């Protein structure tokens, strides 16, 4: 295929600025999907994506469009907009020459608009600003144009003004994509160099690589080699997405497509690896990506201990398509066998948990999210701790360092006060504040990640009525006065409830959790003390009083069956309880401590 007729581009935007709807319009306008099959958010395959209106996994689609008498191939790569999935965005950008920067005409530039622009610039992409939602009454195109020019420094003269919702301006947009975005270069006669920007597992065809062909050509029957491992495979099928998988004869330099080669393990199609021809090999691999590192860790346990193997199976399956999910076996004395899972962020965590419950029909108990700490012991040994229970004894700890982030918040000026108060309360260090324009302020804080993962999003949302946006990136480690807060139930530490907190917050958190536990733990046959302790010192105490009454008053007319059924039901309810020593603790108790508002 003539490379001049190919445009590879991504759509980047802040969450909710209309990427997926715009992708739908492009697909529709180019006639890629018949009207009959058209459904909204076509590229969002997962139920969760459709329901929440968010994109989690990147998706690609090949579009054909006739422009000024010539047929063009447009390869669209839809990307997630949430900060947790920045990693997915950076991967898709590496497969493109250009990016559409979608900005909501009613919202303007937001935190992730900027971070996505930086990603695109790092990848040397041509950026075409697109102003969306111009059909809305509150749209202020001129102000948004000004913001884009001032904050980002992009020329907005003549930039496409569209309404992805009603289709206005979409034809003009397609014209500009063809005119303004560069075509790919590369040599189809050179040795094959294909960058794997995503891979997924197909039950019938094995692990499938989504690739951008940089040089060369690949077709069915070719023997290919993974340049990182040297492993070779025979290509069974090549093709492209439109938006479903469509096999074709070959894909060559400048094109985006997939390669199926009966690969059994997704780990053999590692994202960022370069595929070459095993006989006619490239000398150097393409620069890959850095591996995504989990930021948030939590213990995930099956509510029914007997379903441990099902949970393991489910995690393995999800990991096939989501290399950023990590998990290792974990044993808790309260929750039994489960896994310590690592996630990119809180949304990622929520989504994985929801998928485990919905797609695999599992009931889960998760522990409080934690970050990864660096602990220096008094003997000089350094440990990385992502599970509070593995924190060494206080006497053995010389220092603890916690991960920091640089948080950028965009907000109308009215909420500057509440936001600063919030960040200060979360141990944030003020870095900078600047007015973008009279209606928008950018505030920068350096904050412990530990505080971000504990109800920061919810607090931010409620304090700014949803008007503020947040983006953050990791910013090294910092020594901090951290302690482990343990909860004792009837004198026994419940490992699943332990958290690492700053010493100054230990008392209020401990008291909050103790009060919550008192409410959710049902009265037992005995009085149950609940204590919060730090280093063996009790800092808060509550008591669940002993139950006094649990007996069926009447068994009328010799109806024994009914009484027996009631007892069976009661017994069934007990099965869902977790034992901490001799105390029965309902699953909700473990979840409820995640939702304490300070």
């Amino acid at each position, binding site marked *: 295929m003539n490379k001049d007729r190919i445009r590879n581009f991504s759509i980047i935007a802040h969450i909710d600025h209309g990427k997926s709807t715009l992708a739908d319009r492009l697909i529709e306008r180019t006639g890629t999907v018949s009207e009959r099959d058209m459904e909204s958010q076509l590229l969002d395959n997962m139920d969760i994506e459709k329901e929440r209106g968010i994109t989690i996994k990147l998706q690609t689609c090949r579009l054909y469009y006739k422009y000024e008498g010539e047929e063009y191939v447009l390869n669209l790569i839809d990307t997630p907009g949430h900060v947790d999935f920045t990693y997915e965005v950076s991967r898709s950008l590496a497969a493109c020459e250009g990016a559409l920067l979608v900005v909501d005409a009613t919202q303007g530039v937001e935190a992730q608009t900027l971070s996505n622009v930086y990603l695109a610039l790092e990848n040397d992409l041509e950026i075409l600003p697109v102003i969306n939602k111009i059909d809305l009454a509150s749209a202020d195109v001129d102000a948004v144009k000004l913001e884009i020019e001032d904050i980002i420094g992009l020329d907005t003269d003549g930039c496409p003004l569209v309404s992805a919702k009603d289709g206005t301006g979409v034809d003009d947009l397609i014209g500009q994509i063809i005119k303004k975005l560069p075509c790919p270069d590369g040599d189809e006669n050179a040795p094959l160099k294909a960058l794997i920007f995503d891979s997924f597992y197909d039950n019938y065809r094995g692990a499938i690589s989504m690739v951008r062909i940089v040089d060369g050509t690949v077709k069915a029957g070719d023997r290919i080699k993974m340049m990182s491992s040297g492993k070779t495979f025979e290509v069974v099928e090549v093709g492209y997405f439109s938006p479903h998988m469509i096999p074709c004869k070959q894909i060559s330099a400048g094109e985006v497509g997939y390669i199926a080669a009966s690969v059994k393990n997704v780990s053999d199609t590692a994202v960022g690896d370069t595929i070459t021809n095993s006989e006619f090999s490239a000398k150097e691999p393409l620069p890959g990506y850095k591996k995504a590192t989990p930021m948030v860790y939590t213990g995930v346990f099956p509510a029914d201990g007997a379903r441990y193997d099902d949970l393991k199976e489910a995690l393995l399956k999800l990991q096939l398509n989501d290399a950023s999910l990590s998990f290792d076996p974990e044993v808790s004395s309260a929750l039994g066998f489960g896994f310590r899972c690592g996630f990119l962020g809180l949304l990622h965590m929520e989504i994985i948990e929801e998928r485990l419950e919905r797609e695999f029909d599992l009931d889960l108990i998760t522990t409080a999210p934690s970050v990864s700490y660096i602990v220096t012991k008094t003997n000089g040994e350094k440990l990385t701790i992502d599970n509070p229970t593995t924190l060494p004894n206080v006497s053995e700890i010389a220092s603890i360092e916690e991960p920091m982030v640089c948080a950028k918040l965009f907000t109308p000026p009215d909420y500057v006060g509440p936001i600063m108060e919030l960040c200060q309360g979360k141990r944030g260090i003020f870095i900078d504040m600047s007015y973008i324009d009279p209606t928008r302020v950018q505030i920068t804080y350096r904050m412990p990640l530990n505080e971000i993962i504990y109800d920061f999003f919810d607090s931010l949302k409620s304090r700014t009525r949803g008007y503020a946006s947040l983006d953050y990136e990791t910013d090294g480690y910092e020594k901090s006065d951290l302690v482990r807060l343990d909860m004792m139930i009837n004198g026994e530490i419940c490992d699943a409830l332990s958290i690492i907190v700053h010493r100054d917050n230990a008392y209020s958190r401990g008291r909050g959790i103790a009060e919550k536990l008192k409410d959710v733990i049902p009265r037992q046959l005995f009085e149950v003390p609940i204590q919060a302790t730090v280093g063996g010192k009790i800092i808060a105490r509550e008591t669940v009083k002993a139950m006094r009454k649990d*007996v069926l008053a009447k068994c009328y007319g010799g109806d024994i069956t009914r009484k027996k059924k009631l007892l069976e039901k009661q017994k069934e309810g007990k099965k869902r309880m977790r034992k901490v020593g001799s105390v029965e603790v309902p699953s909700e108790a473990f979840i409820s401590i995640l939702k304490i508002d300070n």
Partner: protein
Amino acid sequence: MEIYIHLPFCKSKCAYCDFNSLSGQEEGTVFSYLSALNREIRLAGDAYGKAEISTVYIGGGTPSLLDSGRIKSILKVLGEHFRIRDDAEISIECNPESITSEKLADYKEAGINRMSIGVQSLDDANLKSIGRLHDRNIAISKIKLARQYFDNASCDIIVGLPYDTNDTVKEEIETLAPLVNHMSVYALTLEEGTPLALRAEEGKILLPSDDETEDYLELAEEILEKHGLIKYEVSNFASDGMECRHNLGYWTDEEYLGLGAGAHSYIKTSDGKNPIPTPIRFAHPRDIHAYIAGVNCANAFDMIPRAEMRVLDEKDVFNEAVMLGLRTSKGVKSGILNGHIPEELKGFFKEADGYTSLTRAGMAVMNSLLVRILKL
């Protein structure tokens, strides 16, 4: 063997009631029901006529609502088809407003020797809130009237009603205790779907907490003991020798036949005499029309439709012996629970004369203990 007879008719349904009872039935339905009951008694007699009947309990519903002639004829037919012992305990449930001297005289003539009166409360606000048809004065005067005919009289009391306080409970128990020689004191159970449960859900009435209700039960128990009414079962108190033999039978593995709609039976013999290998529990359909049709089509007792039926296995026999036996103050034979009580629960049990029984506190939380002990 014991016999229970169910008469599911009431003048109006009480707000807390989810028993098998109906109000506003036409005379024709009542007649059809009693004919079917009559037929069932004959069929049951054919099957179990060899049994010696030690107790008969006529429950409901409100049996005293019916014309007493009908009660007489039920007992007459029963006597013709079963061998009722001379010393049999024959009870009938009555509501205060429907008790009259004529009915009491008829009951006595028919052989009834024990009255169970549904008083529930002596507080008029409580009585009104739960839809009872009598008030405090009627209740007291009808108990006194009943005592003129029967030595053996009991009343039912519910605590945990909307207007209960320590004072009202104390007053009503102290007033009633000298008038009866048996009392059943129940904690109110909110049954799903009843008008009372609905009103409580909607916040239209405020009920005492579980703790307060338990306080009332303790208080009632204390007062009753002072009057010589000693607890012999979770909810039952009696002066010496006046325990309800029929109800005790339920807890102590007695065989019983339940006649009437929704009635439960527990059968251990093939004919009232010869044991069957495994005991059976079963119940008739609750719906009276299904019951009537079922009885009228059946040519033998075991052909009457059964809404539920269970052949008890070894596990069931153990579970029932424990869960029923522990309801009584006497308890169960010590051997039965050997090795079944976890160490930390032993404080809820006591041993006496070869029997294991629950302490007062243990009896109050019996369900929680049972789920730890039974083989469920």
